């Protein structure tokens, strides 16, 4: 069951939100329940003491008249419920947009006084519920780069397209994934040996994920990846890359 929490110090607002949620759950007959609707963040935190394995959907006001604000509350919630869905309710979303997304990895935010507030709430419930019920926790196959003694970055192997360095900066690695490019200090040879299959160093400055290759052009010595990026390929590795690709497609 997905548990819903509401924390809003304005009683009228709280009732509007609570009613809207309850109605939607009832109409759609979802396996959800509002377990805590309060004006004080401490109530939510004490709830965790009784139920430590909670996965919740949280509607949090930012300006709480209390010693902690909504963002700090969200950070506390994250400690107990890292998978939970946090939605902020605020009058001024603009001033905290990045904090929502990056600091507490909030799912969404709702603007108070918006005419579509009810629809927005329903949308949030729908999204959270479908994410909650979809049991797709894909097999994580993280690769951890040790950039320096304390500095590490964990990346999902299957998302990495290719890694590169440049002539000018042989110690600066770019890791290209489908959405993000990470840049940090590192050693390509070390990365190549640690990454293992299906990664292959196809050029002095490139390590490619064989699974991501769409096409091999042995004349121009180029590899076209599935997202359209073109990377270079060294003459001597053409055959090796071909066999690796064949091996992968046959298995």
């Amino acid at each position, binding site marked *: 069951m997905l548990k819903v929490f509401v924390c809003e110090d304005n009683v009228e607002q709280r009732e509007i939100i609570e009613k809207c949620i309850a109605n939607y759950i009832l109409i759609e007959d979802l396996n959800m329940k509002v377990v805590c609707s309060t004006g004080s963040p401490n109530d939510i935190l004490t709830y965790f003491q009784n139920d430590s394995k909670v996965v919740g959907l949280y509607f949090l006001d930012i300006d709480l008249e209390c010693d902690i604000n909504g963002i700090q509350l969200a950070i506390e919630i994250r400690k107990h419920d890292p998978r939970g869905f946090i939605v902020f309710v605020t009058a001024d979303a603009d001033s905290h*947009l990045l904090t929502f997304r990056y600091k507490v990895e909030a799912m969404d935010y709702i603007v108070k006084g918006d005419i579509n507030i009810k629809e927005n709430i329903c949308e949030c419930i729908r999204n959270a519920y479908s994410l909650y019920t979809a049991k797709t926790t894909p097999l994580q196959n993280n690769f951890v780069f040790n950039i*320096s003694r304390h500095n590490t970055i964990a990346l999902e192997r299957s998302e990495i397209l290719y890694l590169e360095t440049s002539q000018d*900066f042989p*110690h600066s690695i770019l890791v290209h994934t489908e959405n993000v490019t990470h840049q940090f200090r590192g050693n390509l040879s070390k990365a190549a040996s640690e990454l293992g299959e299906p990664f292959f160093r196809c050029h002095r400055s490139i390590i490619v994920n064989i699974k991501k290759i769409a096409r091999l052009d042995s004349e121009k010595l180029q590899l076209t990846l599935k997202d359209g990026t073109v990377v270079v390929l060294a003459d001597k590795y053409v055959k090796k890359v071909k066999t690796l690709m064949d091996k992968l497609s046959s298995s």
Partner: protein
Amino acid sequence: MIVPFPVLAAIEVYIFFVVFGNISKIKFNKSEMFFAFLLMVLFSSALFLYVVPVWDIAAIFTHAIYIIVMGLIANRKTNVLSLSVLFGSLSSVVFLLAGYITGVLLVLVFGSEYNDNEIYLNYFLPFTSYIIIAFILSFFTSRWTGRFIHKRLCQFDGELKKKLSEYLLLGASITLLLFFVKVFLHDILVYAALLNTVYGLSLALYFAFLVIAISSFTDSFRKETELRHKDEMLKNLKDYTVNVENMATEMRKFRHDHQNLLLGFRNHIESGNIEKAKEYFQGYMSSFNESVEIMDSQLETLKYLKIPELKSILSFKILYAQQLGIKIHVEVTEEIEGIDIYELVDLCRIVGILIDNAIEAAQETENPDLRFMVMRKDSKITFVFTNNFLSSPSQAEIFKKNFSTKGEGRGMGLYTVSQIINRNGNLLLSTRVMDGIFVQELSVMLLL
């Protein structure tokens, strides 16, 4: 004669290539190299054989050509002409110096008959020993010189680098000139072995002096840059203070107005004139938004940032963006402190570059949307910059342009960023394009 001129020229050009490669640290492509090689060999053998039969004078012209050809090729990669020519003339200096020392050595070992060019050309042993010793000498000298020069130059970028390489070029040119003065003297004084040795030694001394001069010169250069950097920071902080003071004044005015308004209200309400009160209220509301706008300069959010260096650069950039009419949202919700002092210089530079890029890209759009946030997560401090943009560069393109092609002045400063990350293992930069927004996250480790 046992060695034909073209072979000699080819060997000479080859050594020059090795020296140049070591000094410039540029990897050339093969076809370019091949043509340059051919051109230089043809030119120098033609010169020796037909045009100027006097050995040392021909050398002047061949070296001039070497410097020009190699300088032009290098310039395609470095884009700084003075730097490219500097590589060329330094190569000449190293090359000539190595040849010179070899000559002196051979004379010392085998006697004064080795002080004659003819002997090297006509006998096998003198020839090979000369070539081998000269090659080894020039190889190691050039490698060392290359490292020295790059270590010195990579502390600077842009204009400063150009300026510095101009100075260095001047030094190298003077050295070359000294060599060639010797060439003419040589012809006048005709084979005076002792003079030759003394001259060679004094040249070596001169070279050592030059190295020391360059070291101290670049050191003072760097100190000056740092000083200028500090000055700028101080200025930024002053601007920041002035702005905060203005805000405080504005706030006081606002409170004062507010009090007056409430008093006015009370009068109207006490007299029971609701219509008047309504009118009064609306009149006030229209001016209210304006005054709030002035106070909303986002600087106040920097109060949690407890690192003056960062505060200085950020407040400067925020004010700059606002002057350009760009709205910028700043989010600092928790206290940020504890960044190692040694990280700060690198960090400030990268932050400056990233924010400049964001401003530049957002400026092109109709509704610029800039956001900036600092947060603490785990044992890292993360800076997030987001901006909208007009022409959408794909992720790969952004880096292709700035990462793999050399050359400053390409606009985005990511070259410098790569340079810093290349040596600093405490940083991590992640770039993405998400929902039409360009996002850059810079993390720096807190040393615990």
